[in-house]
């Protein structure tokens, strides 16, 4: 877990990030990572800082989310502008992948 930096009022902000199955290869099978951050984007960047090999699976080369990635904040779709969504202590992010098979 990345050390908490605290929010503007000095409180620690802990956000749970649930990782899609395909991302767990980068976390040794770990399903959930707890990080800090004030936005969804900051939280995801902190996940990637902890598990750098995950970066290209979540982000496109331009730093935006990869098209196949879907983000849910507290089980609610964060689309559009997912990365800018503010988060608060105790929030939960799900990183999932679009499916196309049938």
């Amino acid at each position, binding site marked *: 877990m990345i050390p908490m930096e605290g929010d503007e009022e000095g409180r620690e902000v802990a956000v749970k990030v649930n990782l899609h199955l395909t991302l767990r290869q980068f976390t040794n099978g770990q399903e959930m990572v707890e990080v800090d951050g004030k936005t969804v984007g900051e939280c995801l960047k902190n996940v990637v800082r902890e598990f750098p090999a995950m970066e290209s699976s979540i982000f496109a080369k331009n730093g935006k989310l990869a098209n*196949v990635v879907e983000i849910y904040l507290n*089980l609610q*779709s964060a*689309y559009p502008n997912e990365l800018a969504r503010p988060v608060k202590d105790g929030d939960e992010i799900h990183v999932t992948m679009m*499916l*196309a*098979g*049938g």
Partner: protein
Amino acid sequence: MLTAEELDRYGRQILMPQIGEEGQEKLKKSRVFIAGAGGLGSPISIYLTAAGVGHLRIVDHDNVELTNLNRQVAHWTADVGRRKVESAQEKLSKLNPNVTIEALSVTISEENASGLVAGFDLIVDAMDNLPTRYLLNKTAIEHRVPFFHGAVNGFEGRAMTVIPGKTACLRCLYRGPVPESKFPVIGVTPAVIACIQATEVIKYLVGIGDLLSNRLLAYNGLNLKFTEFKVQRNPQCEHCAHL
């Protein structure tokens, strides 16, 4: 009006207070468009045929391959090389001769999609690629008919029901094109998702229960968990924003 044979055949579901003879008659009068006769389309068409939906139009341009048989349960070993829709039609007609099964071996395209679905009560998405799913989503919105989405990969699947102009559509969540790839899958996964789609179709046709609308149901067979994500309409959606 249900025949004596139909009253007998569907007796167990007519016993359900939510369905009854009235609901069964609604199923009999219904016309359902199923896009795809593969992993999802096989169980969807089997269960809708068994349930007594009056008319199914099944569209798929593929022939049966050996690699399909781990999941596409409407097709059997002797069917390898046949057109999928003909293979499915044969089995479904034997399962329930009361149901009209139309089998169309064509590629769904921008040019023909609207004509193919005209006159049908709803569209079931049993495709294996995103571009055709989006095309069908758009066509459903144009025709103002519900769209029953399902998709799978490996042990995972998802389903969502779209009511045009009222609930989030597939395109409401669109970020951009996704590269196509051969997807891994084991037959039990599309079976689970297909049964959820067929359940939704039956509920819609009979007019009962709560639909899987503005909710994306995600299934993970590995840890056997269902997760429900709330989704909302996108005011800028290029398919449904005008409704």
